[in-house]
């Protein structure tokens, strides 16, 4: 369980550039959750996940991981964080060395490191024969998987992913999302930062919407998408299929707009005929 207790955070406090990033944030993430955090650029999402991962020190509020403060080493090691465009952080000569970098720093044995590299590669759907390739020869989607595998090799109990599919083509995106879903099924608790509502709808059981550093909404994705006013205030859009249903309704068709997937849309429209 992750407890976020009454967090506020201000950048460059006491200077003319002072900017409040987060105000009085409270929520918790249970084991097995797939929590999405949504909000437009500047809403405070990135600050929040860095605080959860223990990368920013707090003056106000606290983050507890399984009851322990995030400032402790044991708490911090339970959290893995994958930043946006993580492939920019690849640096080693081979895929294997890159993934092994983290576990090596944890001081694990060679055998354990090698086992973890294999397992991490399998988890993200990377072929074992690219182990000795340079990460820079891979496609965009593969590079990103290598970067994610590097974090998974640390065996985090909680995994934070910051817009993991940004910039990927539709196929790579779909594949990566299904790997993330598998990770979740394998028992990893996921915190997923995104503004792609269709991804949130397909994956998350709970969503938190941030705007101007505050929590504007917390609940099931399905509940969120019918609340257009909240979405507008947060600068977000419902999934394309929900938008389409809203437009069909505006065009005079008597369809429900609480639709999140193409399957649901197909069934709903077929009902009309």
């Amino acid at each position, binding site marked *: 369980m992750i407890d976020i207790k009454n967090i506020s955070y201000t950048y460059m406090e006491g200077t003319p550039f002072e900017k409040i990033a987060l105000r009085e944030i409270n929520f918790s993430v249970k084991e097995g959750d797939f929590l999405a955090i949504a909000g*437009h*650029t*500047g809403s405070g999402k990135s600050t929040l996940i860095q605080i959860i991962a223990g990368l920013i020190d707090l003056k106000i509020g606290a983050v507890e991981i399984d009851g322990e403060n995030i400032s402790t080493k044991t708490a911090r090691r339970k959290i893995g964080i994958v930043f946006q465009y993580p492939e920019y952080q690849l640096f080693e000569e081979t895929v294997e060395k890159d993934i092994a970098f983290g576990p090596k720093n944890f001081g694990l044995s060679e055998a354990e490191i090698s086992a973890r590299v294999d397992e991490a590669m399998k988890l993200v759907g990377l072929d074992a024969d690219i182990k000795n390739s340079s990460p820079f020869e891979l*496609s*965009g*989607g593969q590079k990103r998987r290598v970067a994610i595998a590097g974090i998974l090799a640390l065996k985090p109990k909680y995994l934070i992913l910051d817009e993991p599919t*940004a*910039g*990927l*083509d*539709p*196929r*790579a995106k779909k594949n990566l999302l299904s790997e993330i879903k598998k990770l979740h099924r394998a028992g990893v608790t996921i915190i997923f930062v995104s*503004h792609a509502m269709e991804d949130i709808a397909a994956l998350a059981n709970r969503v938190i919407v941030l705007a101007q550093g505050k929590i504007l909404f917390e609940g099931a994705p399905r509940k969120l998408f019918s609340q257009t006013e909240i979405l507008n205030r947060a*600068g*977000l*859009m419902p999934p*394309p*299929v929900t*938008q*389409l249903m809203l*437009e*069909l309704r505006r*065009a*005079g*068709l008597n369809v429900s707009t609480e639709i999140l997937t*193409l399957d649901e*849309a*197909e069934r709903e*429209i*077929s009902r*009309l*005929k």
Partner: protein
Amino acid sequence: MINVENLRHIYANGKVALDDINLEIGDGEFVAVIGTNGSGKSTLAKHFNALLKPTAGKVFVNGIDTADEENLWRVRENVGMVFQNPDNEIVAAIVEDDIAFGPENLGIEPAEIRRRVDLALDTVNMADYKKFSPSKLSGGQKQRIAIAGAVAMLTKIIVFDEPTAMLDPQGRREVLSTIKKLHAQGLTIILITHFMEEAAQADRVVVMEGGKILKIGTPREIFSDVREMKRLGLDVPVASELAARLKLPAGILTAAELAEAIKR
């Protein structure tokens, strides 16, 4: 006008990135280029303003051969580029200085620079922010400043290489509507994108795979073959996909068209 004739591009490591590309883009056209990562889209885009030169074949911009080193600046006076990450494109500490950077480098006189910067700011709807620091802007606003930089060069052709990939939905809308405005003003637009809803707004769509052009057609033609697009690892607008699932006639692109077809 851009003419691409039998273009081939082979990278230093021997990878054939583009293979026998033939394409003609007319004045005032809005062309979208789609394809999976590694299909050659960005490599093609970089040939339009001579960031890359053909290994074989030719690229002509308004009749100018891009392979000739002496033509470099003339090519770039004709074609502007906007990339994925606005943070990599913005150079100055104040918005209007950033937009003035290009014209200043051409040695244009101050009064003319002022006129162009104001025009560019108006075009992208950012006049209120001219004294701002770019670091204080949202992603969509930064990208519009990058576009204004191209507008201030008075180029007739602008190539956008995944300009919305890093933006949130609001930013994406802002940038796309700016692109459509530029097109309406008569500029030639080439848009590389992974978002099929954006490609659907273009006059023509070029589909690339493995360094080759697989198909060129109107969005309606391209997106009517849902199965083929999925096979290529691409997508189609939701309205097109739903229409296919509901066995409605092919060629539906928008919600309004879908609504009509359902009512019928």
